[in-house]
């Protein structure tokens, strides 16, 4: 498989693997928790790397995902104490974990040569190495298969728990009344998100992964009223952004993930503005039409307006 195709495939698969759980992250109002997770997995990644010496190791991914889960559970605990106001519980634990991660990096634990900059930004163009070779045939980057596995796990989880996720997202209290274990489901889902963040950080970096998770889903939310439509649109936006981001980065000779994040942001603004203008025009047309109808045939207009 050629280098460029490897990078493009990796960008598309990674963006899909992140965007899929992103739909529920956005709807459940967990976006800033993902921000916390993405910072907090740093110490997990470093300790994991020191132990396994392999960034693609499943043990590392699951171990670091536990560090992300620590943030989720810690936030919940802090909120439950009732001693803190507003969104402060979400902003207390992750900086401490992130700081611990940076100190670990600076101590050069077990010669884990991880560049903090690379952890934050990632590098898609480097993530395609090493290639996986089966029977002497290069079948694409090894890391591509890691992301494919993550995508498969995410898709399977959402498919199996679709109804439950939907119900707990839109009416948590009703789900509780039905006897659904909403907290357990939430924890499992956040673990999945955490795992996705860890798996994707090598390609897109710990901070820009938020963009892949949140922005396509938020863009889709702007123009959809049904969950199924929103999910389909999210996938479309995610892939379009991945391809455009790759192309921009290729032309400008910069990092693919940063270009993707900027493109996603621009896409969100464009769709938001277009949707605003479209509603405005529609509303104007409707009001002028109904005025015209009311003038020509007041009785019919009154009935139709009901």
């Amino acid at each position, binding site marked *: 498989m050629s280098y460029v195709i490897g990078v493009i495939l990796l960008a598309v698969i990674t963006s899909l693997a992140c965007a899929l759980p992103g739909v529920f992250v*956005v709807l459940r*109002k*967990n*976006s*800033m928790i*993902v*921000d916390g997770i993405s*910072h907090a997995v740093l110490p997990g990644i470093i300790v994991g790397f020191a132990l396994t010496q392999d960034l693609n190791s499943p043990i590392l991914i699951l171990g670091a995902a536990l560090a992300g889960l620590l943030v989720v559970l810690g936030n919940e605990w*802090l909120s439950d*104490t009732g*001693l*803190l*106001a*507003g*969104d*402060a519980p*979400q*902003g*207390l634990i992750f*900086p*401490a974990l*992130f*700081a*611990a991660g*940076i*100190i670990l990096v*600076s*101590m050069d634990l077990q010669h884990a040569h991880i560049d*903090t*900059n690379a952890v*934050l*930004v990632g590098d898609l163009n480097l993530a395609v190495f090493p290639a996986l070779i089966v029977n002497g045939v290069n079948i694409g980057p090894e890391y591509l298969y890691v992301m494919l596995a993550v995508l498969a796990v995410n898709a399977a989880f959402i498919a199996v728990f679709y109804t439950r996720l939907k119900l707990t997202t839109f009416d948590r209290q009703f789900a509780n009344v039905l006897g659904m274990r909403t907290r357990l489901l939430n924890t499992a889902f956040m673990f999945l998100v955490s795992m996705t963040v860890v798996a994707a950080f090598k390609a897109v*970096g710990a*901070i*820009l992964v*938020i*963009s892949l998770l*949140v*922005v396509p889903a*938020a863009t889709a*939310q*702007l123009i959809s009223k049904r969950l199924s439509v929103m999910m389909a649109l999210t996938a479309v936006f995610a892939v379009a952004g991945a391809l455009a981001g790759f192309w921009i980065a290729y032309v*400008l*000779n*910069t*990092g693919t*993930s*940063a*270009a*993707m*994040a*900027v493109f*996603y*942001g*621009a896409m*969100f603004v464009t769709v*938001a503005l277009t*949707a*605003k203008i479209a509603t405005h025009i529609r509303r104007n047309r409707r009001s002028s039409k109904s005025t015209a109808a009311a003038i020509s045939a007041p009785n019919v207009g009154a009935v139709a307006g009901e």
Partner: protein
Amino acid sequence: MPKRSWQRRGKAAMDLIEFFSNHVFRMVFFGTTVIGIVSGALGAFAYLRKQSLISDVIGHAALPGALLAFLMAVVVFGINGRNMLLLIVGAVVTGTLAALFANAVAARTKIAIDTAMAISLTTFFGLGMLLLRMIANNPYPGKGGIQDYLFGNAASITRADLTTSVAVGALALTLMIVFWKEFTLRTFDPVLSTMLGFRARVIDTLMFSTIVIAIVIGVKAVGFVLMVAFVVTPPAAARQWTNTLPGMVALSAVFGGIGSGLGAYLSISLGNVPTGPVIVLVLFSIFLMSLLASPKRSIVVTALRRVRARKALRRELMAEGRNP
């Protein structure tokens, strides 16, 4: 240098006279303490507005501003790109823009505020990363170590930087004191504030600008990514000890100052440990102690009170049972 610091680790911490007679150490200590005091005091308002996390957005979004300021300085003016004042101006502009963008998205679309903040944060940070890459790919003078904007490098604080930090920080604190009444009213009763004729948008912009300043002056010592802890942690700790606004702002500033000073001292005397992260851990410890053991509402005190109340109740019921 690393070797010496490893040897030092076994011994007791460096004594204070040795610490303060070193120019670099002094700069680090006073620089970080000033940052801690200013961000602690102004963070109290962000906390009470229940928008602590906006500081995370501002911190990340300040990066492209600082880098644009660097490019402007080098390419347009041909001066030193690391000029602290220019850096602050650039960072304040993009930091404020990001905060306004997040609030506008939340107010005008159906996107919730937390998602709006995440979008703003990651888009501005992505822009910063693009600029960083661009600067790295081109031969600009004075670009060495520019990635320090991310995590800071306390040892690079010069006397001029310290002066600028103190001056800009003092400006932010002065604004806070001058508009104390307006800030308080807007924080606790926004409706009354608007009814009395105060312009909500003007006060909000002013309040967020002071918070942005508090975050931005930390860039050289702490870096943008960790500044969120300087704004969120001290007020969360201070809240456990006091019920009044002046008490909260003052105590938050004190916690910020002490945490930063202590953290700076620890990081230097341990050697080879970056200053910003150590300060964050010290601040977090102060917060945890406050949460667990502050005298009025902490977890331990509440638990003790509950045990005592249960005992008293049992005693009362027993007494009632004996002589009905």
